[in-house]
């Protein structure tokens, strides 16, 4: 018989129902030490820990809100982001990193299933200024999203019939279903962004004349590089990977042979190979270095191999073989790895006498891309680098021409979506400053951070929750391969997070703290940082001095850290020895102690107590108090929640 149930839930009497919803108290233990590696690893500083924590507690909407704060396309990123955060994740040292990316996707899918209300906060054209964005890839879309929220009028011009850039015309559908792109692009449109597709920009001065006050160039890198191998221009049967993938994505009829070779080791190569496999061809990939050097995502390579694609590592094309003007095969040579080159990767060195041939009808080079600048009119004044990309100021993305900015792949060469988003954010900030006539370079104040060493307590191993996949035999189509997490899986996975640096900065606790003791900022004048910690953690950051300590800030300043332990305390003269606290405490902290005369009094083990306060909520005589979860507070709760 659980004696105390009626107090925890609601008080019901014959006549009155007292709603008592919050009797299970909230966490008010804030430990905050630096930022976490995942956030640090993310180019847009996503509050990873915060959203993982919120997923773990089932607060999916709030978690998505956190994601969207920095990322306008979570459903897209959640599928195809290269997730540098996971590379940094501390948990990797124990078992595997958190499935941070897949959890983001889970949130976007959750919203899709449950419907969403567009977040229109701040969207009103309040500021003067019209902005033209060229290119609707992730760079352009992000900048558009930010600028319209800042109050500007924004138009995006896109040459192709669809918006999304490489998301739509590069990354294949089985990795990124088109309805996901459409949904997220539409959400941006709904904010008021005009996206003009089938509109190729050919002149910047014309845009200026149309009244655009600022122009952002985000045209990506779409021009495939040549192989520079004999026979390349002689025989028919060549198809550049970008052209190939774009044609497939746009639903055009593409003719490829039964046997296909893809050359290269990046994502574009793997995507081309897996796409050709889906069109019914048998596919070989030829890559110069070993698997370790392959820039494509490891999990993509794995899937490609599972789909039966043969990868020739350490092999380079020597010569194209042709008959009757058509490609029939390719001669390759085996390499070994020599000294590292300028990129730091070991240079492939051909092994004499190791030549071999592969039969093929179609060759898809996917070695690298550069921006296609053929649209720029002759006599433009923009500075172009030797890699055919735009030269910009690294911090502001401003080109050498006033009012014109450029970012994304067309500046960096082929990179990643998350870096494209970062560029979009950066451009939006600069363009805002430009239009507000503020100096473009912000006086950046680098946030001072308290330097603590992050110590991982030894944790038990717990395998990562693996993403369910479409079975191999069902893959001769463009159905999405990764199937996504179910709610339970997402929660289970999110619970693996170690919460490096403790406080997740999700700010969930702030409205709950009755005494407004929680502050997320480190005070300017370092009067002190309050760490409210359970007692067993007291000595952790404070080497030696359990209650107070001085710490150096990055700039050499000292800051006082005050630690307040939170534990439940029993006023023994009020304790009835009923044992309710003992029964309810999850951490077995309270223990009844016989006073010798048959009288029992509860004693709470300070080390075991986590300060959750639930015992205070069940104690019939009000004998238990917590630092600031007092009986008064509980009383107030009752009063506030009384509805008659």
């Amino acid at each position, binding site marked *: 018989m659980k*004696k105390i149930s009626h107090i925890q839930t609601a008080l019901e009497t014959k006549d009155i129902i007292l709603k008592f919803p919050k009797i299970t108290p909230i966490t008010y233990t804030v430990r905050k030490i630096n930022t976490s590696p995942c956030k640090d690893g993310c180019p847009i500083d996503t509050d990873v820990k915060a959203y993982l924590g919120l997923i773990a507690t089932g607060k999916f909407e709030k978690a998505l809100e956190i994601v969207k704060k920095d990322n306008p396309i979570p459903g897209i990123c959640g599928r195809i982001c290269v997730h540098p955060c996971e590379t940094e994740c501390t948990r990797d040292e124990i078992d595997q990193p958190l499935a941070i990316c897949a959890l983001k996707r889970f949130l976007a899918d959750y919203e899709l299933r449950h419907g969403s209300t567009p977040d229109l906060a701040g969207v009103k054209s309040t500021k003067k200024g019209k902005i033209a964005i060229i290119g609707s890839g992730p760079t352009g879309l992000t900048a558009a999203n930010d600028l319209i929220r800042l109050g500007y009028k924004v138009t995006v011009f896109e040459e192709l019939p669809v918006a999304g850039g490489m998301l739509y015309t590069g990354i294949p559908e089985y990795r990124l279903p088109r309805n996901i792109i459409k949904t997220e692009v539409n959400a941006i449109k709904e904010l008021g962004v005009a996206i003009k597709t089938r509109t190729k920009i050919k002149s910047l001065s014309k845009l200026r004349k149309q009244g655009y006050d600022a122009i952002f160039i985000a045209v990506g890198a779409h021009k495939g590089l040549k192989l520079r191998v004999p026979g390349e221009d002689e025989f028919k049967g060549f198809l550049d990977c970008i052209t190939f993938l774009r044609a497939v994505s746009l639903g055009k009829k593409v003719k490829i042979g039964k046997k296909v070779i893809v050359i290269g080791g990046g994502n574009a190569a793997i995507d081309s190979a897996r796409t050709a496999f889906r069109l019914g061809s048998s596919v070989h990939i030829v890559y110069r270095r070993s698997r370790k050097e392959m820039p494509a995502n490891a999990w993509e390579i794995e899937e490609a191999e599972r789909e039966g694609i043969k990868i020739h590592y350490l092999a380079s094309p020597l010569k194209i073989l042709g008959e009757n003007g058509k490609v029939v095969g390719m001669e390759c040579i085996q390499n070994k790895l020599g000294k590292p080159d300028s990129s730091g990767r070991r240079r492939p060195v051909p092994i004499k006498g190791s030549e071999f041939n592969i039969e093929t009808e179609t060759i898809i080079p996917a070695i690298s891309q550069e921006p296609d600048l053929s649209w720029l009119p002759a006599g433009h004044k923009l500075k172009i680098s030797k890699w055919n990309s735009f030269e910009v100021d690294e911090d502001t993305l401003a080109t050498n021409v006033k009012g014109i900015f450029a970012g994304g792949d067309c500046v960096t060469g082929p990179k990643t979506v998350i870096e494209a988003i970062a560029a979009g954010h950066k451009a939006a900030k600069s363009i805002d400053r430009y239009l507000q006539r503020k100096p473009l370079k912000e006086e950046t104040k680098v946030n001072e951070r308290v330097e603590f060493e992050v110590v991982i307590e030894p944790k038990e191993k717990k395998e990562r929750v693996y993403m369910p996949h479409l079975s191999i035999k069902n893959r001769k189509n463009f159905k999405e391969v990764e199937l996504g997490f179910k709610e339970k899986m997402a929660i289970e996975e999110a619970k693996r997070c170690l919460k490096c640096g403790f406080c997740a900065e999700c700010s969930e606790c702030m409205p709950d703290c009755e005494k407004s003791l929680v502050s997320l900022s480190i005070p300017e004048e370092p009067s002190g940082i309050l760490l409210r910690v359970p007692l067993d953690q007291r000595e952790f950051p404070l080497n030696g001095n359990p209650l107070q300590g001085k710490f150096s800030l990055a700039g050499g300043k000292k800051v006082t850290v005050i630690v307040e332990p939170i534990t439940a305390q029993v006023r023994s003269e009020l304790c009835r020895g009923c044992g309710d606290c003992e029964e309810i405490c999850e951490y077995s902290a309270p223990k009844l102690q016989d006073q010798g005369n048959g009288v029992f009094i509860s004693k709470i083990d300070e080390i075991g107590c986590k300060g959750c306060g639930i015992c205070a909520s069940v104690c019939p*005589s*009000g004998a238990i108090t917590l630092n600031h979860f007092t009986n008064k507070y509980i009383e107030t709760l009752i009063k506030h929640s009384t509805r008659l």
Partner: protein
Amino acid sequence: MTQFQDIIKRTKAYLCLDCGKCTSVCPISILNENYTPRLLVNKVLRGDIDLLNDELLWSCISCGLCYERCESDVKFHEFIRDLRIEAYKIGKTGVYAHHGTMQSIMRMMTRPDLKQNRLDWLTKDLKVKIPKSEIRNPKSDSLTLYFVGCLPYFDSFFSNLQLNILQIAKSTIKILNHLGIEPVIMPNERCCGHDLLWTGDIENFKKLAQHNIAEINKTGAEKVLVSCPECYVTLKEYYPEYVAPLNAEIIHISELIAENLPELKNNGGTGFQPVKTHSQDGCANSSLKVTYQDPCRLGRFSNIYEQPRQIIDAMGFKLKEMDKNRKSAICCGTSGWMNCSTYSKQIQLARLKEAKNTGADLLITSCPKCQIHFKCAMSDKNIDKKTKIEIQDLTTLVANQLK
């Protein structure tokens, strides 16, 4: 201090001889050496106003033993009550049991527009009159009103103790019906306010009193019957003292039963069944031994000692008195849903042991709160078997034994 002058006068504290008899008899003082009634009087007489901040002010369980013992007639328990009223005015309170839920419920009941659903428990076999909202024909017939009190609230709040405390109300009506009385029950009754008064909240006590007085007077009842000793003393003593008297006679159910014992026993085929065992096995045991707990509000406060005993006797039980009975009975350990402490628990355990030591199988009481508090004390998992005893309410017992 003038602030205390009235209190000193009204409670005759000025007569205190500093003899310490109160302290020697106080059940709290025996356990908590910091608490002494003598010193508290002494402090007030010396004009120590800091006393209002003293937590000890809330430790008294208002059992009235000290007053009973005091040669100089100092009403110490009322003295402390009045000091609490002063302390409450400056924002002091005791430590409420159950997170103040009871106090909240009581204060909620002061709302004029409160909608209660307090007659849910009535069953068809119980005959009552429920007044409509309009004023009834005053004094059209000799009406008896049954003032139910907080039984419905206790019943569900303490459902974990498996008390079936509402049986007291049902039994009361059954007995009244048996005597040919169809009582009036008010759907809009409120808590009598006893505990608010004793915890210092005089303002809200007065609101409850005013409401109940108006409602009762509206019904035109000549007699108000109560089954709870606290309601009894409140309606009878405190309403006239602080607000206004009722136009009705206040009667406790044990008075009524005792008065009608001959009728209940002999008349018209009605009467008590021969006493059987109360236990489930149903085997007859005419000499079941019982003992009786005098509730302080019924005994020391209202001088009703003998009627319950007569009733127990009439039903054929063998009454084994505890050592401390009648005027010197020890109370159930806590009062006013406040400062229910380790001392309360010890008082309860000691009293239960005393009951058990009489050799009785059943402890009879006539106060719902005695029952709640004792049963609460027995519900702990660490409880000594030797302290466990069955508890029954007197009214319930009578109704069960009726033919």
